């Protein structure tokens, strides 16, 4: 039901912009032997959108990205990227894509600038043009001072920024980012987000995968939550939170075991409850009103009222079990 609604929404979006979607997928499937990594998913990405694939490891995000990036043949279904068929026009599509892969593909023995230039040359840019763009883009990601340095000693965040700069060398219409900030420290993540914001403002269509909820909330206009190869939910971050969680969450912390209680003791103030080893999460629309009741009934060590986040949605949908 919800899937169809999403599609209708995407269709109406398309009518509004009077333009075919940049990415159009129906029943998109990827199998590796017996394993079905992507199990018949439907989605559309419109021009100028920032679209996210969220999900735990192994949900099929990267496989989907690799199919969009025309480096992984689709097993079944239909996929068009920039209005072209990846099976036939892979090279032509890739000419217009920027790709930030999950694992860096930099040559760490070469310098920052050499990596930029070589990559630009893969797109057939003239030497002069690629040099000018390399300078501009290295400045954009604040690596201009390291242009002559080898890549090897750079920090993880710098390498990631270089990979982003490199992915922009062909001035792509569509930028694919597979876990752009995984493994980075908070400062480095914010530096990357800042650059991605700017690109978005410039009208570059972003498609990214992440398992960081804050990243999805920060960057995505619209996202899908993937689980075991299928799309579990689709919407804007706010819509998803509104639809699938409550406005607020009250976190009660206990020194020892979390007491066993029934939701009913809160007289309908709590929509849902979740018990963690040391905490009890109460999903409610009015946290402040719930605090005195919680104190009185449960005597927690501490109480925290916070806004519901995409993380709450995500964990509700995909469960708390560790996925490898």
């Amino acid at each position, binding site marked *: 039901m919800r899937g169809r609604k999403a599609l209708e929404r995407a269709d109406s979006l398309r009518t509004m912009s009077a333009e075919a979607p940049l990415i159009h997928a129906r029943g998109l499937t990827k199998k590796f032997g017996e394993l079905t990594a992507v199990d018949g998913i439907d989605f559309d990405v419109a021009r100028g959108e920032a679209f996210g694939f969220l999900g735990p490891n192994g949900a099929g995000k990267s496989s989907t990205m690799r199919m969009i990036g025309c*480096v992984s043949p689709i097993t079944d279904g239909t996929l068009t990227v920039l209005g072209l068929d990846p099976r036939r026009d892979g090279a032509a599509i890739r000419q217009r894509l920027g790709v930030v892969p999950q694992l860096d593909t930099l040559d760490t*023995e070469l310098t920052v600038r050499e990596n930029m230039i*070589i990559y630009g040359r893969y797109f*057939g840019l003239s030497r002069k043009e690629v040099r000018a763009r390399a300078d501009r883009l290295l400045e954009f990601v604040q690596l201009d001072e390291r242009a002559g340095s080898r890549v090897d000693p750079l920090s993880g965040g710098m390498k990631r920024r270089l990979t982003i700069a490199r992915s922009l060398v062909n001035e792509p219409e569509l930028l694919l980012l597979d876990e752009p900030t995984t493994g980075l420290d908070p400062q480095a993540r914010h530096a990357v987000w800042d650059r991605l914001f700017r690109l978005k403002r410039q009208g570059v269509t972003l498609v990214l995968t992440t398992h960081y909820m804050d990243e999805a909330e920060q960057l995505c206009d619209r996202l899908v939550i993937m689980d075991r190869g299928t799309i579990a939910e689709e919407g804007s971050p706010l819509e998803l939170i509104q639809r699938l969680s409550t406005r607020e969450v009250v976190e009660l912390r206990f020194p020892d075991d979390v007491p066993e209680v029934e939701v009913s003791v809160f007289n309908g103030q709590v929509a849902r409850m979740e018990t963690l080893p040391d905490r009890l999460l109460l999903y409610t629309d009015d946290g402040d009103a719930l605090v005195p009741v919680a104190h009185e009934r449960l005597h927690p060590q501490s109480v925290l009222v916070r806004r519901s986040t995409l993380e709450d949605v995500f964990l509700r949908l995909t469960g708390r079990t560790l996925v490898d």
Partner: protein
Amino acid sequence: MDYSPRAYEYWVTSYRRVWRGSIVTSLVSPVLYLTAMGVGLGKIVNHGAHPLPVPYLDYVAPGLLAAVCMQIGAFESAYPIMSAIRWTRQFHAMLATPLRIRDVVLGHQLYVASRIAVVSAIYLAVIAVFGTIHSFFAIAAWPVAVLLGAAFSAPVVAFAGWLERDEGFNALFRFGIIPMFLFGGAFFPVTQLPHGFREIAYATPLWNAVDLMRHLTLGNPTLWLSLIHVAYLALWAAVGLLLAQRTFTRRLVT
């Protein structure tokens, strides 16, 4: 469209880091080998009941040329290819751009060809200085060197694309390249080998190249035998390329 020159440019950029040392090695090693093998060893061999019809230095020089081209062709196609697949992952970078598998494979082949073109030119110049070239046919040894490089490079590239771990290269060098270097006709006629081994030697691409180059530098090639040698080397290169296309596709386009 052929995008292989774009992939070629990567290898050239990568090589530029080491070119000085590499060129010096290409210049010094033939001098050392020819002095030791040809001048030193050559003085005390070749006096038995069946001496070679030419001085040992003249005999061994084209053999060394072929052996060196074999080593470069194989070596440049082993670890660097595995690195571009697994460590620097540069092939993944290429394939995210308009480049396709065949561009990636051919771009590297162009690089190996130019490496060997440079090294073999230096080598030919050095052995000319040592006075071992007896004919203008020797010029033809130059393209033969490049073809020999491809006859080794392409199959090793395919092998590198197929290998799961780099330990496999040890086996390749231990049981393939080094035995060919020693017994493939570079240093002594394979007719010295017992039957069985001799036939194996005839089947190696190295022996075919050595025999052809030797006839060219000594100035006594025959047309039909030369053509057979060339065709045989080309066959190794062609089969290697086809296999590389397959192993790369399985490895990189999943």
